[in-house]
């Protein structure tokens, strides 16, 4: 067999661009993280300025570290490894640059719009519809470039890293598209297509699998490339990589409902979430162990090499968080952990340890290679490793402590059957933990700055090898099997398109079985006659609630626990959320649950509390919202909002969009009058009035007496309490 060697060049310039973007967005995202961490301990850092309050900054942090830092990290690793694993240059340089600049533009647009208050109010999917469309387009560009490269490869079989890349691409596409269905109101405002329980299920099917298919599977692909390369060892077990890959992507997709345990989600869906989470332990650990055991015979190198140290701790953190996650999915553990800082600690072990450290290791490994030099300081990299590890510990331990303490305080009853602690006491008690957590984050950040300096000096000492020469024979027309690829699985390794289709089928099963019955079978969400659509003023208030990111600290989901029923009122029912586009159940209770807030306090209490929470709750760490008192309600947009809601099936009467503003003004006038009785003078067209209207409505539909419920049948009637 005569093999003609073909000469070609790997593109390192695009790898460099993504590496720089990774570092840059990492620094930005972590800085915002530090800001919000210290805001919790010291609310003064909210600066009484809308764009810097916690509720708006927190989505910027999560989006920046997930989609900007880790996202660019994925692309850096994929563009580097895919070319070499396929023995070819990327399919198209131009598509690569469209992808690069497109993604960075999306990130900037995301940061700006989130700070300006444009958000859909769905966690990790907060971006408004034009940006969602842009993401879809750029993702397609990546897909074309990815598959173009794979199709013109000079390597017959696809290495395990590429299976993970393919699985990632197709699943993220599916998740993003299904979760982003929304009804536009105007250019930067939309309502989720789904409502209440269904919206929650779709959202957490997405949210959980954003962790699975954005933070996990692509990084497992990178792990399978960078660890064997850095350690110069063969992968421990090929068979194991096959079984854990398919098991992982099949099982992961089912686990979303574990974010909704003890909520109004039907019990059967919750149970599926729990059992599939438990089944997920071993497939996850297969990845960790196959990686760690690849280092067999190279542990002496781990001692010397900071890069391998980063990889080892990354895998260890991956193993810990993928064991902890399933444990948190058990009902009895979840009853304690959910809504507390335990969850925050859990995700950060994964994010700081697994994603962060794997990214740092990969950057330290590939930058000197593409710049044809050696790392400026190995010692500094080692110090980065130690300070980063210390940062993770100091971040996680206080939050585990805080979460556990707070949950137990919430649940504590005195012997005479009353709640032992006010909610606020459970918050002020854990503030020292918040400070410590901030210190942990700061240490981690110092490590990143050391890396920036180290990389800067490394780059300065070398020269980028823009086009790296390589050669390989072209693929022969006829495939002759050899002993190394006689395994049955190598059939699909030769067929990327079948791999794509089969991956999609495998990941679609779990979602379909959970989502479709929840949408189609009526008994899953029993309707409640007393539940009526929001009045226009309440709807406007709800949009302000979403805009300010209240859901980042407040839940709207009273779980069926004795303590929550005592503290907040009757537990939340599925039928109460049927007009909630989007749902606002939240995932964290830094502040108390708000689902039964309506009617609990007078309007004047809310007015003062929004102006300065400490006036009404001394010691509160909630930011001040003074601008709500000054800014006017935008009444021009109300008819469009009503029409959008009608299109989504909310039963406002025909032609109500034109009458909506009359009702809005009437209800606003009544609230202003009530405030005036309490000596608070305010114009009825201020945002605070809408906010009060919404907060006073929350959870009151099924609290109302029968007489009131009858009166509410007409949506034109003001639904305020008498």
């Amino acid at each position, binding site marked *: 067999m005569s093999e003609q060697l073909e000469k070609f060049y790997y593109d390192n310039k695009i790898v460099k661009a993504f590496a720089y973007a990774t570092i840059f967005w990492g620094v930005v995202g972590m800085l915002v993280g530090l800001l919000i961490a210290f805001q919790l301990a010291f609310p003064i850092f909210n600066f009484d300025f809308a764009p810097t309050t916690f509720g708006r900054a927190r989505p910027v942090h999560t989006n920046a570290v997930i989609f900007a830092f880790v996202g660019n990290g994925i692309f850096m690793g994929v563009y580097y490894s895919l070319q070499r694993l396929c023995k070819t240059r990327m399919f198209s340089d131009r598509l690569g640059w469209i992808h690069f600049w497109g993604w960075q533009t999306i990130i900037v647009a995301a940061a700006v719009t989130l700070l300006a208050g444009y958000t859909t109010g769905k966690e990790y999917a907060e971006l408004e519809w034009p940006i969602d469309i842009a993401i879809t387009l750029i993702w397609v560009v990546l897909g074309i470039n990815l598959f173009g490269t794979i199709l013109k490869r000079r390597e017959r079989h696809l290495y395990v890293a590429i299976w993970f890349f393919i699985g990632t691409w197709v699943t993220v596409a599916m998740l993003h598209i299904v979760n982003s269905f929304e009804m536009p109101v105007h250019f930067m405002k939309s309502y989720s297509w789904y409502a209440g329980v269904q919206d929650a299920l779709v959202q957490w099917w997405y949210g959980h699998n954003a962790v699975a298919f954005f933070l996990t599977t692509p990084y497992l692909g990178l792990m399978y490339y960078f660890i064997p390369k850095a350690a110069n060892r063969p992968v421990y077990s090929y068979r194991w990589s096959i079984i854990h890959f398919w098991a992982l992507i099949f099982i992961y997709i089912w686990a979303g409902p574990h974010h909704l345990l003890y909520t109004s989600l039907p019990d059967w869906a919750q149970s599926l979430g729990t059992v599939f989470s438990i089944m997920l332990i071993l497939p996850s650990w297969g990845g960790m162990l196959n990686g760690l055991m690849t280092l067999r015979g190279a542990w002496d190198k781990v001692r010397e090499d900071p890069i391998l140290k980063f990889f080892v701790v990354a895998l260890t953190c991956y193993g810990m968080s993928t064991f902890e996650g399933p444990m948190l999915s058990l009902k009895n553990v979840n009853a304690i952990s959910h809504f507390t800082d335990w969850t925050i600690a859990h995700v950060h072990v994964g994010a700081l340890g697994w994603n962060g450290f794997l990214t740092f290791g990969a950057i330290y490994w590939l930058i000197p290679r593409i710049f044809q030099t050696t790392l400026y300081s190995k010692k500094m990299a080692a110090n980065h490793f130690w300070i980063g590890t210390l940062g993770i510990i100091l971040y996680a331990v206080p939050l585990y402590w805080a979460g556990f303490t707070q949950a137990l305080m919430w649940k504590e*009853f005195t012997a*005479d059957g009353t709640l032992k602690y006010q909610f606020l006491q459970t918050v002020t008690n854990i503030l020292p933990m918040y400070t410590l957590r901030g210190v942990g984050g700061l240490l981690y950040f110092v490590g990143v700055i050391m890396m920036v300096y180290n990389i800067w000096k490394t780059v300065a000492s070398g020269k980028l090898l823009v086009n790296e020469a390589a050669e390989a024979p072209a693929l022969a027309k006829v495939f002759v099997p050899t002993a190394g690829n006689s395994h049955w699985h190598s059939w699909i390794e030769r067929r990327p398109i079948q791999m794509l289709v089969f991956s999609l089928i495998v990941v679609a099963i779990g979602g379909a079985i959970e989502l479709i019955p929840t949408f189609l079978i009526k008994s899953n969400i029993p309707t409640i006659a007393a539940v009526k659509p929001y009045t226009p003023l309440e709807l406007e208030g709800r949009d302000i609630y979403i805009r300010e990111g209240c859901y980042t600290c407040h839940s709207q989901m009273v779980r069926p626990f004795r303590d929550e029923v005592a503290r907040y009122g009757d537990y939340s029912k599925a039928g109460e959320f049927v007009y909630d586009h989007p749902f606002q159940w939240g995932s964290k209770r830094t502040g108390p649950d708000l689902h039964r807030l309506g009617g609990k306090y007078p309007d004047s209490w809310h007015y003062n509390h929004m102006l300065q929470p400490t006036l009404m709750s001394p010691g509160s760490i909630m930011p001040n919202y003074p601008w709500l008192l000054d800014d006017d309600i935008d009444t021009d947009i109300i008819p469009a909002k009503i029409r959008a809601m009608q299109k989504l099936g909310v039963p406002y009467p025909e032609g109500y969009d034109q009458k909506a503003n009359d009702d809005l003004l009437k209800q606003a006038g009544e609230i202003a009058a009530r405030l005036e009785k309490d000596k608070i003078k305010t114009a009825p067209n201020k945002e605070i009035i809408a906010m009060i209207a919404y907060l006073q409505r929350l959870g009151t539909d099924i609290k109302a007496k029968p007489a009131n419920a009858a009166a509410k049948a007409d949506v034109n009637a003001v639904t305020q309490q008498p």
Partner: protein
Amino acid sequence: MRWAGKVSVATVLFFTMLLPVQSFAAPKVQDAMSNPLAQVLVAIAFLLLLCIALLGYVLNGAAEVYRQKLKNQSSGGQVMPSVIAVVLLLLLGGNAVAQEAATPPAVAETISGLSYTAFYLLVGVIVFEILVIMAMVIQLRYLAGIGSAAKEKVMAVETAVVKKPKANWWWRINNAVSLEREKEIDLSHDYDGISELDNKVPPWWLLAFGMSVLFGVVYLYRYHVVHSAPLQIEELELALKKGEEQRTAYLAQSAGNVDETSVTLMDGAAIAAGKSIYDANCVACHGSAGEGNAVGPNLTDKYWLHGGDIKDIFKTVKYGWPEKGMQSWKETLSPVKIAQVSNYVLSLVGTNPANAKEPQGELFEAKADAPAIDSAAAGK
């Protein structure tokens, strides 16, 4: 590099010790620290910390020597796993301490005068320190060549030609092909220089995976087929029932069973207790002296929206008047506490504080059973 590791260990320990003082014990640091048991425990913890520092120093030296040896031999060591074990211990240990210590945040009983929280916290720190010391000793033994594993290894290297080196338990349970024979299972893949071995999937892993699937089947069977475990609403009903039983049992055998029909006027001590309840819960809406503010009415005048009798006030506090903004306190305050705070509120009448809000509601005339001074004043 190594100093950094040592510093991290020490810092974590330092912070672990600091945490309780800041969070739980903050208001009663003095009581806790004057407790002899606490002093002993803290002393032990401190001594152990010194041991750790000392051991760390020795370990540092030993590691240096070992490293030299390793460089000479250039044989694959097993040092890093134990380093990882320490890191893991740190993480898990810290976690365990956190959970153990946090279990009873509400201190009802004590151990030799020391609260459960403080006791378990200190014991937790000590256990944690002992674990760290044990890990350090193991590593020291290993580095110094005392550990049997190291001896075997050295011997194995020397007699490799004669005797097959023995794989350790980890590789045995994984059914791994030994390093020496790994060429035999090399699949001769070459992905950018990466090759793959065809090691068997560890049998324990397959077994555990099977068990997790079995868990799932049993779980679904119990909850959704035979209903032998309570679903969430049933769980709530059980909890409420149990809570109610405990509550009635407690109230039956205590003097705390007071309600709006049996509440009476109380004297100094109860009113003082009422004041602290008032200060903690009521000032935001009614003002620090009961003068009222934008939210709540003035409590110091003779005008009442819902009646000014002790029984009326008790009822108002207990059930609230939600449509007017007064919340119900029956889930937060025990009946005795409601009685105390109601008495305190009644004691505010006639105090004429500054910035008092204008009267609201009906003029309430004290009845005959009210204190004599009041009726005398009213008579004038």
